């Protein structure tokens, strides 16, 4: 169920769009509305952000008055046009960028506090859009071990985590290969393994399907659906988002303009159009399709 935002509850200033969905109910009820995640009483939020704003050094705003709460175990899609602030939001949550304003709690840590920020990699993993930014070592196994070694874990535990992470992404056979000789899909999985080896409670994935062929994409969906962690996934691939997320945050110009169950928000053609997106094909008409060999042409449906 979706709720129109009362103007007094708006995140930031600006005109209230007719389609602007944000929960206007008590925070403890938010997740109960968002698909499969049960209501979580009290302070059991994996991510809590209140009125967060970030401006680039030259002064242009990137995020404005962001407010969101994500329960442990939730899988949340972050969608929006280019330049909406999806990556910036992730970098702020990971403590890489420090917002000028607002309150943030990520897995109980405040990323704005340098001491707490240093401990955040134990709890939060960020997979970057370009895997080459993340794969810095000369073998896949060394790269996957990079994070656990930084956590100061003993050798046996690091090796156990490396094996487990490589198994989780199906790259056991590639452990001694040079990361940049891998295919794009394998690179993406190696980068994901590097983060999974740190056994984070929260996983942020920035454009995980970029450069992936259909098989790589399918493998990634299978890997993600097996993971039992809180996930935020930023992607333009809305069909992919539909398969791995129950809730969606729609960002545009640094603001959250909609937050709710993914199927309902992504099927709102007017909302999607207004923010530079399109309704995913699978939500435009009932499936499965009529076979192409059928003598009866499929009637157009919307």
């Amino acid at each position, binding site marked *: 169920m979706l709720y129109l935002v009362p103007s007094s509850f708006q995140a930031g200033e600006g005109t209230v769009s007719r389609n602007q969905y944000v929960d206007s109910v008590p925070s403890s009820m938010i997740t109960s509305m968002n698909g499969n995640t049960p209501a979580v009483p009290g302070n059991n939020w994996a991510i809590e952000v209140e009125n967060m704003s970030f401006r680039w050094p030259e002064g242009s705003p990137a995020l404005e008055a962001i407010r969101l709460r994500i329960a442990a175990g939730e899988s949340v899609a972050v969608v929006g046009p280019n330049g909406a602030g999806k990556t910036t939001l992730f970098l702020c949550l990971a403590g890489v960028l420090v917002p000028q304003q607002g309150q943030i709690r990520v897995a109980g840590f405040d990323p704005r506090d340098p001491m707490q920020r240093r401990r955040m990699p134990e709890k939060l993993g960020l997979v970057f859009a*370009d895997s080459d930014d*993340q794969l810095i070592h000369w073998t896949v196994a060394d790269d996957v*071990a990079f994070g656990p070694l930084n956590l100061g874990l003993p*050798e046996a535990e690091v090796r156990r985590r490396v094996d487990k992470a490589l198994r989780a992404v199906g790259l056991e056979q590639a452990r001694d290969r*040079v990361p*940049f*000789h891998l295919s794009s899909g394998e690179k993406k999985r190696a980068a994901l393994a590097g983060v999974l080896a740190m056994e984070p409670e929260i996983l942020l994935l920035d454009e995980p399907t970029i450069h992936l062929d259909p098989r790589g994409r399918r493998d990634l969906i299978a890997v993600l659906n097996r993971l039992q962690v809180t996930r935020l996934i930023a992607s333009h691939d809305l069909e992919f988002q539909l398969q791995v997320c129950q809730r969606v945050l729609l960002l545009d110009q640094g603001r959250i303009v909609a937050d709710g169950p993914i199927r309902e928000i992504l099927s709102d053609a007017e909302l999607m159009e207004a923010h530079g997106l399109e309704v995913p094909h699978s939500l435009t008409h009932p499936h499965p399709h009529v076979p192409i060999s059928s003598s009866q042409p499929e009637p157009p449906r919307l």
Partner: protein
Amino acid sequence: MTLTLRDWATGNSPLHRMDSRWKLAAILTVAVAIVLADNWRIPVLACVSTGLWLRYAGLPWNWIGSRLGSLAAFLALLVTVLPFSVPGPGWTFGPIHFSFRGMELAALIAARAVTVSGLALLLLATTPLDRLLRGLVALRVPGLAVQLLSMSLRYVYLLGDEFFRVRLALRSRGYRHQFSAHSYRTTANVVGSLVVRSQERAERVAQAMLCRGFTGKWRWLPGQRARLSDTILASMVVCTVWLVPWFLSALCFGN
């Protein structure tokens, strides 16, 4: 772009299997000794031994030749000029004087250069880079230096790939390099864009490292364990490339 050295580094000779710490220690010791040798016979004999080790590692001659080719071009100039420019006893043909001392000097310099380059090839072509870097760390090379080496090598290929993509894009739009202001401007723009891209990538790489808990100290999983055979092989490298040439030189020529 591929790592051509890496292609050979995955071979299966005893040198490929050798512990990188022992290999590094042996090759560096021998290389320093060869550079310090002042008798031309020692590096010449060492050069022959190095060639045999390269062959023993299963590296093809034509590959070794192509790798040492550019060095040979420079050395050829040196070998041609030195005998005629250094004074000392020798043969005189009219205005031209051929000096034995110059010839020895040329042989010393050329043999030193070829031997040390051959040893470097032997090291790089038989050791995967991850093991080489681990070896450097184990031999107490400063972590920052190893980190810089690793990251530079890692990303120089990526930058090279980006350069080739930009070049292809230019060619696809009809660009051909000529000696003109337009060409120089285009080249400057390409170089500028590559510098900006590398800086942006460096920032993203740093962010990704911070997100994985990097605090400035480069950590590695322990690699190979040294065996007795590694020690024996390292000793054999030192003996054949340095001690035997030195002994033969002393025995046969008295110096």
